[in-house]
C-alpha cells in the first residue's frame, strides 16, 4: 500500500528537506519546484530558482571542521534500549586510555540524551568561544557534546520536530570546537529517521569510517537491526560489525548463566552470518554495567575482572583492527 501512495519516481530521500510536502520530488530533481506537490510548499520559489541544486552552504564548514578528525564512527541500532549509549561510552573510555589519542563523543539523541549521565557530567554546561562551542571534557583527551548540556534542567522535554533537530545536528558538526581528534564517536537515537539521514548528509563529503550496530539477542530486536542494515546499504555506510549486548546473565549467587532475552532465532551471530556482516562479539548482561552508567563511572575501570569487560575490550580491539589502527 505504500507503493500506491508513493510518487512514481522515488526521490533521493537525502535531498528532501525536512519541511517538504509528502510528495516532494527532492530538491536536486529537475522537477524541483515544478510538480503539483510543490504548490504551497514554503521552499517552492527557492527550488524553482535552481539554487537548491547548489551544495548546502554549511557543508564546506562541516568539511573543514571534520578535516581534523581522523576516524568517524557511528553507533547505530534499530531498537531502543539495547545499549548504544553504554557501548559508545565504553568505546570512548577505552580509546582514551591511551593519552596520545584524542577522542570526541557526539550524542545526537536529542529527545533522550543519556551520554551526559553515563559519563557523570550531567550538570555541566557548554561554553562558547570565538572558535565555537567547547565540548565538555571528561578527561584531557575525551570531549563530549550533547543536547543534555543545553537544557535548563534534566526534566525538560525537548519536543522538536525534524527540522529543528537537523539544525542542531548541523551545528554539532560545524560549530563544536573539537580540535584535532583521532576518533569521533557518534551516538544515535533508535530508528532510521531524521537524525540518521542528517548525519549521513552532513558527513557525505568528509566520509564516515563505519558504523557499529548494536542488538540484543531476541528476534524483536534483530528485526529492527535488519532494517538498520538495509538503511546502511541504502545510504552507503560501511558496517564495521554487529555487537550482541545483554547476551546471557550470570547469577551473582549461583554463577549459573541464563538467557534473559533468548536468541530464539539464532541471535546476533546468526543474523551476522545471514547478512554477511562481521560479528564482533557478545557482551553478557552484568547488573554492574547499568549501575556504573547511573553513577557515571567507567565500567571497564571499575570492574576489570568482569567477563563483560573482557568482552568489551575484545570487541574494541577488533574494531581498531578493522579500521586499521
Amino acid at each position: 500500500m505504500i507503493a500506491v501512495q508513493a510518487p512514481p519516481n522515488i526521490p533521493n530521500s537525502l535531498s528532501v528537506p525536512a519541511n517538504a510536502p509528502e510528495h516532494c520530488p527532492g530538491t536536486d530533481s529537475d522537477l524541483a519546484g515544478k510538480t503539483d506537490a510543490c504548490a504551497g510548499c514554503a521552499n517552492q520559489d527557492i527550488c524553482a530558482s535552481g539554487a537548491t541544486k547548489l551544495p548546502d552552504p554549511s557543508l564546506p564548514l562541516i568539511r573543514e571542521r571534520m578535516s581534523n578528525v581522523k576516524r568517524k564512527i557511528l553507533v547505530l541500532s534499530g531498537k531502543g534500549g539495547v545499549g548504544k549509549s553504554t557501548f559508545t561510552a565504553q568505546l570512548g573510555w577505552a580509546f582514551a586510555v591511551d593519552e596520545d589519542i584524542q577522542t570526541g563523543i557526539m550524542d545526537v539523541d536529542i529527545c533522550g540524551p543519556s551520554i551526559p549521565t553515563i559519563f557523570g557530567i550531567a550538570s555541566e554546561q557548554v561554553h562558547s568561544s570565538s572558535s565555537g562551542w567547547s565540548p565538555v571534557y571528561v578527561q584531557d583527551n575525551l570531549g563530549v557534546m550533547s543536547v543534555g548540556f543545553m537544557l535548563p534542567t534534566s526534566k525538560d522535554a525537548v519536543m522538536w520536530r525534524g527540522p529543528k533537530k537537523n539544525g542542531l545536528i548541523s551545528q554539532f558538526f560545524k560549530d563544536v570546537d573539537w580540535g584535532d581528534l583521532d576518533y569521533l564517536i557518534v551516538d544515535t537515537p533508535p530508528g532510521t529517521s531524521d537524525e540518521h539521514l542528517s548525519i549521513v548528509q552532513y558527513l557525505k563529503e568528509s566520509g564516515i569510517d563505519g558504523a557499529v550496530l548494536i542488538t540484543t539477542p531476541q528476534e524483536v530486536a534483530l528485526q529492527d537491526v535488519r532494517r538498520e542494515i538495509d538503511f546502511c546499504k541504502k545510504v552507503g555506510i560501511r558496517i564495521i560489525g554487529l555487537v550482541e549486548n545483554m547476551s546471557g546473565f550470570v547469577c551473582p549467587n549461583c554463577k549459573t548463566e541464563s538467557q534473559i532475552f533468548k536468541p530464539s532465532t539464532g541471535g546476533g551471530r546468526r543474523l551476522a552470518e545471514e547478512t554477511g556482516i562481521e560479528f564482533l562479539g557478545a557482551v553478557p548482561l552484568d547488573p554492574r554495567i547499568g549501575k556504573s552508567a547511573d553513577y557515571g563511572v567507567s565500567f571497564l575501570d571499575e570492574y576489570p575482572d568482569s567477563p563483560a569487560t573482557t568482552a568489551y575490550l575484545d570487541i574494541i580491539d577488533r574494531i581498531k583492527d578493522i579500521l586499521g589502527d
Partner: protein
Amino acid sequence: MSTVVEDTPVTRRLQSVKHIILVLSGKGGVGKSSVSTQLALNLYSSSPTARVGILDVDLTGPSIPRMFGVDGPQYAVHQSTSGWVPVYADAESGEQRLAVMSVGFLLKKKGDSVVWRGPKKNAMIRQFLSDVRWGELDYLVIDTPPGTSDEHLSLMEHMAGVRSRVSAVIVTTPQAVALMDAMKCLSFTRVVELPVLGLIENMSGYVCPCCGEVSNVFSTGGGEEMARREGLKFLGSLPVDTELVDVLDSGGKGSNEEAREEFSLLSKYRKTATAMIFGGMTDGVISGLGS
C-alpha cells in the same frame, strides 16, 4: 462534550472509539511494545465483548506485528470502501475483537527499512488515525516510538478533536538513565495537557531460574519513587520474565495443545507469571479511565 469539536476525518473516524490510551516512554527498549501488547490482551479479556484496537506508530521500528504473531507475508492490510481493514490477531479463534495496525504490515520484506523524515511520518500517522476501519472499539491502545518528537506531536495534533478521550500510560525501567527520560516524557504530557493514568516500572528484578535469587538487573524501585514524587499513580512493577520474552518474541506461535477457545497468544500469555501481575495493573488503568 461542550467544546466545539472540529470535524476532521480523524475526529469522524475516532468517534466510534470510547477510550484512547497512549503508551509512552522517554527511553527506548524499556518495554513499551510489550506493555502495549499486554495491555491490549488484558483489556481484551476484561470482558467477553470488549473490542480492542492496537495501533503501532513506531514507524521505523515496528515490533507489534511480531509480538502479536501476525508478522509474515500472509498478514497484510486490505483496502475496503470504508477504509483500511486492520489485521485481527484473534482470527484463529473465529473472532474479530482484537484489531492490529502497524506500518509493518505495509512493508514488502521484513528487513525493509522505513527511512522517513518528519513530514512523511506525520502523513502516515494521519492516515492511520483517519483511514483504518476499526469499527466500534472500547479501547484503542497506541504504541509510540521512544522520545518526544514528530510522532508524538503529530498524534496530539491530529487527535485534537477527541482529546477528552485520550490518556497516557508511562513505562520506565528502574535505572537512573531511564527515569530521567521518563521525567522528560512526563513534562511532555504536562505541556500538551495529556492526562496520565499511571506509571509502570518494567524489568524490575530478575529471578534466576536456577537458584531463585532475585537480581536487580537494572536496579529497582526507581519508578515507584518517581511516581510518589510526581504525584502519579503507580500501577505496579513487572519483573524480567523470560517466559514472557519467549511468548512475545514468537507471538505465541508453536504448539498449542489447548482447546481452540482462545487464540494461542492469549492462552500462552495467560500462563506467564507476569500475566497475573498485569491483571491488577489493567484494573488500575480501567478505573483511571472511569468509563
